[in-house]
Each structure stands twice: as C-alpha cells, then as structure tokens.
C-alpha cells in the first residue's frame, strides 16, 4: 500500500499573504489533484497534474498556483489569502485508468485572520 502526506496539517495566515501547501505520495501514481472542501459544497477541483511538470486548471483555480516538479510531489500556493477564508484542502492521487479510485491525503486546514 501507499500513503499521501500533506503538510502542514493546520495553516494560519494573514490576509494578503502567500501560502504554500505541500503533498507527497508514494503510490507512484501519475495523476495528482488538489481539492477545496467547504461544507455543503462538496469537493471542488482546484488544479490537477497528469504527470511530472504538467498542470491543468480545475473549476476553482483563480487565486491559486500549483507546481509539480517531481512525480511524487504536488504543491499548491494560495497567491493572496482572503480574510475569513476557512477551508480544508485535500490532495489526492490516482492511476490513469478510468475505473481507478482516488486516494486522499488527510488534508490541510486553512484559516486566514
């Protein structure tokens, strides 16, 4: 089996600050994803990456940047944190086959003061 690690677990930032969230996986999966989880809104896709150095925008990419420099890691940057923003950011990975499941990390909980 494998595991997805997200750091930090909790992230507190100031309004306007640039904040970076990190994700590592040891499944050797090609595809990785970043989701934002808000209560009652499901999982909304921010960015995904098909392979190393590839980046694809999701439905919620405005205000975020991403980076995939290695196959095993995928970073997400909040370019300018918004006051009162509070959400959980989930990283996931999967094989490329259509019926493959996604594996999720434990999440990073963001609070902006």
């Amino acid at each position: 089996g494998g595991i997805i690690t997200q750091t930090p677990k909790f992230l507190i930032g100031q309004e306007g600050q640039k904040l970076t969230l990190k994700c590592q996986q040891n499944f050797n999966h090609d595809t990785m994803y970043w989701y934002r989880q808000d209560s009652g809104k499901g999982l909304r896709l921010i960015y995904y990456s098909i392979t190393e150095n590839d980046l694809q925008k999701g439905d919620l990419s405005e205000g975020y940047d991403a980076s995939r420099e290695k196959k095993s890691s995928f970073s997400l940057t909040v370019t300018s944190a918004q006051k009162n923003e509070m959400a959980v950011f989930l990283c996931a990975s999967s094989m490329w086959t259509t019926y493959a499941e996604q594996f999720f990390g434990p999440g990073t909980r963001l609070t902006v003061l």
Partner: protein
Amino acid sequence: GDSVTQTEGLVTLTEGLPVMLNCTYQSTYSPFLFWYVQHLNEAPKLLLKSFTDNKRPEHQGFHATLHKSSSSFHLQKSSAQLSDSALYYCALRNTGNYKYVFGAGTRLKVIA
C-alpha cells in the same frame, strides 16, 4: 458538462433502519461511478465503485446499482449502524478524462 447530484444534505436515521442515499448524474458518455466515505477528521476513502459488467458492488454491507436508464447510482444498506455516521460523496469519471466530478455530499447521522 458532467455533473453529479446528491439531493439530501443531511439524512438522520435510527440505528437498524435501512439506508438509501441518492445519487444521480448527467454525462454525455457512460461513466464509472464511485461512492466515497469520509469519517470525521479523516480523509475520504473509496467505499465502492461500479463495475464494467453489470455486477453489483458491495462493501461493508453497502451496495449500489448502476442504472443507466435513470442515470442513478444510489447507495443502500439494509441496517444502519452508529459507525456509519459520516459524509458520503458520489463521484463519476469518464473514459479518457482525468477529472473526477463529485456531488455536494450527504451527511448520514445514525442515532440510537
């Protein structure tokens, strides 16, 4: 585009009663459907997924049947347990598409 609808935001049940969580979808193609479960303070994890042949997937007492005619993949269990209390997501993925599309989620609360 593709979409997944979960009509109930919260379902509250008494232990021992049957569970049915609704999931309908819209897709141009024939997607694979998934159910994920997320317990409090844990990561979402796969509960079950549709098969390519018409077998009914089952796991931990839960099952779901893909009905292409009604574009549905409802989650069912004959008898709810307190430990089933969690957030449940229905999702789909189409062939050749790397993206998964998730519903808004249904929170199941089982009470004694």
